């Protein structure tokens, strides 16, 4: 079984209202050194696949199709082989 860790962020041109609001809150809380905050999504997906190439292709395919919005988001991911034990 493979574990894919997928990190999704907005493309640079897209507004990230959450990031702005969090940054303002951190400033109010006196974390003065904060320069920039971006919030994205993080997925951990366990999947069966016959080899690492198939797994990679599969992750790319469903991330493009469902997990991200290609107009506004981009992603990267790590893939590792894990034991079949189910809990992440």
């Amino acid at each position, binding site marked *: 079984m493979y574990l894919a860790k997928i990190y999704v962020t907005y493309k*640079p*041109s*897209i*507004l990230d*209202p959450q990031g702005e*609001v969090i940054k*303002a809150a951190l400033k109010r809380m006196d974390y003065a050194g904060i320069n920039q905050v971006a919030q994205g999504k993080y997925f951990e997906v366990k999947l069966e696949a016959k080899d690492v190439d198939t797994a990679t292709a599969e992750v790319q395919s469903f991330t493009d199709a469902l997990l991200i*919005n290609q*107009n*506004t988001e981009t992603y990267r991911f790590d893939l590792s082989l894990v034991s079949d034990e189910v809990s992440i």
Partner: protein
Amino acid sequence: MATVTNNELSPEQVRDSNIYKQWGLTEIEYNLIVKELKRLPNFTETGIFSGMWSEHVSYKKSKPILRKFWSKNERVLQGPGEGAGILDIGDGQAVVFKAESHNHPSFVEPYEGAATGVGGILRDIFSMGAQPIAVLDSLRFGELNDTHTKHIVDGVIAGIAGYGNAIGIPTVGGEISFDHVYAGNPLVNVMAVGLMDQSAMQVGQAHGVGNSIIYVGAKTGRDGINGASFASAEFSTDQESDRSAVQVGDPFLEKLVMDATLKAVREYSDIIVGIQDMGAAGLLSSSSEMAAKAGMGITLNLDMVPQRETNMTPYELMLSESQERMVLVVKRGEEQAIIDLFQESDLDAVIIGEVTDNGRYILNFKNNTVADVPIDFLTHAPKQNLIMTEPKRLSKFTKTQYQPDMSDVKNTIISLVAQATIASKASLFRHFDSMVRTDTVIKSGGDASLVRVRGTQKALAMTTDVNARYLYLNPKVGAQMAVAEAARNITATGATPIGITDGLNFGSPDNPEVYYELDQSVAGINDMAKKLNTPIISGNVSLYNETDGQAIYPTPMIGMVGLLDDVSKATTIAFKHATDSIYVIGETTDSFNGSEIQKLQTGEIEGQLFEFDSDQELASQALVRDAIANDFIASAHDLSEGGLIVGLLESSFAGHLSFNVNTNQADKYLFAETPSRFVVSVPEEKANLFEELAGKQATKIGSVTDGDNIVVNTTTQTVTLSRREVKKVYQESISWQLEG
């Protein structure tokens, strides 16, 4: 004039590369610009003409038809032309409303497309100085057996909820239906209603030389660049690359902008000269139209525009469709009060230019003048006279009405209530906060919705309606029927219809058959609007709704508002007491072409549309309003898709009672969609009074009953249904289909 900044194409390169064509300008239009300017337009200038002359902004193709709309009566304070129309509702108050479409963006990116549609229409309302009080929607999707359609439905519903709920304006009603023609081109129309004191009326005009142009709200990014020309282009399924023009909304920011804008209007009406939201073609169209309407010029300093991204070009700054932005015109010397007010809510408010008297639209950027064009010319796209021809299909339709197959009436009824277009939409509109602001008297699930005007006895009824299948069979009569149905829904609450906003969704106007549909639809809307005394005070046009050359049905959404003087008279569709008598108001005739039963049994819509008699319509509505005003009736429900049987079932399901009726007609008439009809229930002690008032217009067909048994007698048979079982199908069918 500086011609090249940021490695833009030179004027000669613009000409030779034909880039203006990609932006949607025709060669004739480009040459007109050259002739008027007496030189080649530079890159920025070409860009701003392409934005302003797009159909979405200029309405150059639909204007000759839109001009025909009837939009004046004793109530109209503001007709088409401003952010939204305004009607007098007495006591110095006014209602403001408008509809907007976000069809293309919602296909590309359902959540953000629908969400920013709500954000945009709300800005239209509060930029007039009105407090938004309600949102409605009108949605069309492909059939629910398709995975992509399900994805679009989920996204659109979540997007409307995501924006409307967060900003705190209730989504009180709407309509949804499903037909294959919308599979590649869903329709997402939203309507917003606002309330204001007449003294607070604002218009989007830039008067007064030297007055300041103030930019308010979100920073400008590159989102939605070319959205306006994108909204005016047809989709082809292999054109994925075009799909970057979708904006992202931030309802939190918009709530801050809305509250601050309304506060500014309340506290500084004497120094605010005009307000305009930035919608299609962003800063460009809002600033140029404000100046043009006032007969003035404008000069902007683009270095002052708050920017979210680095290295933005003038072209990008002007055409960006970043959301949650407004333009204010403020008296010179008084700007600080306004700037402070917005800054109190942590909002950007910046002076970016001033009103001039030279009639020119001038943009300065990094110490250069990057555009200098006559404003009148910029804001008046060359008219286009398009040809129209009657669609070939219309002459092929025969008069014979479809005859339903009545071999198994009971199962036909059950299949009918399971049809996505008939089944309850509650599992979808349950995601919308319909009650925030605590003024919603009648929520989604009946005919029209009703919102009270706090502090008075008045309430406003509102609805969106159109049965596009009827228009497909007959654009003019179908359009009359759409207006009539909207008015029936308003009337069923007890309210009197007072005005219309429309959302004209059509295919490509360059196709003469589509242009004919548009023309005839407007004619039909006009006819019925005049009869009802409901002027068309605002609206929206969405053309090019086609995928790979296949146009949608002509779908002119009718948004209607009604006024109820005494909210205690408000009437709902639910049966109220067992033993109440049930009456049908209006005649039932052989009306099956374009009906839900035809669609169910044949999968097609065809034949000549059945007849519509507008006098009969007015008479039925007058009777229902009278009967409600006199407290004669306990429930009222208009009959539309699915006919009498669906109307009866809905009145049953909306409460907790059943019914026993005898129609004295053949089975098939249970499913006829003859217009101008209502089903009402009348308490025993009012029956005589009601019958006296109604005369021949009403026919008693049975009574409301306790228990689970629904009994329907016709001249041919008796059908018995379990209320519980049929209700389950009605309520859960949409979820089953979405999850299946």
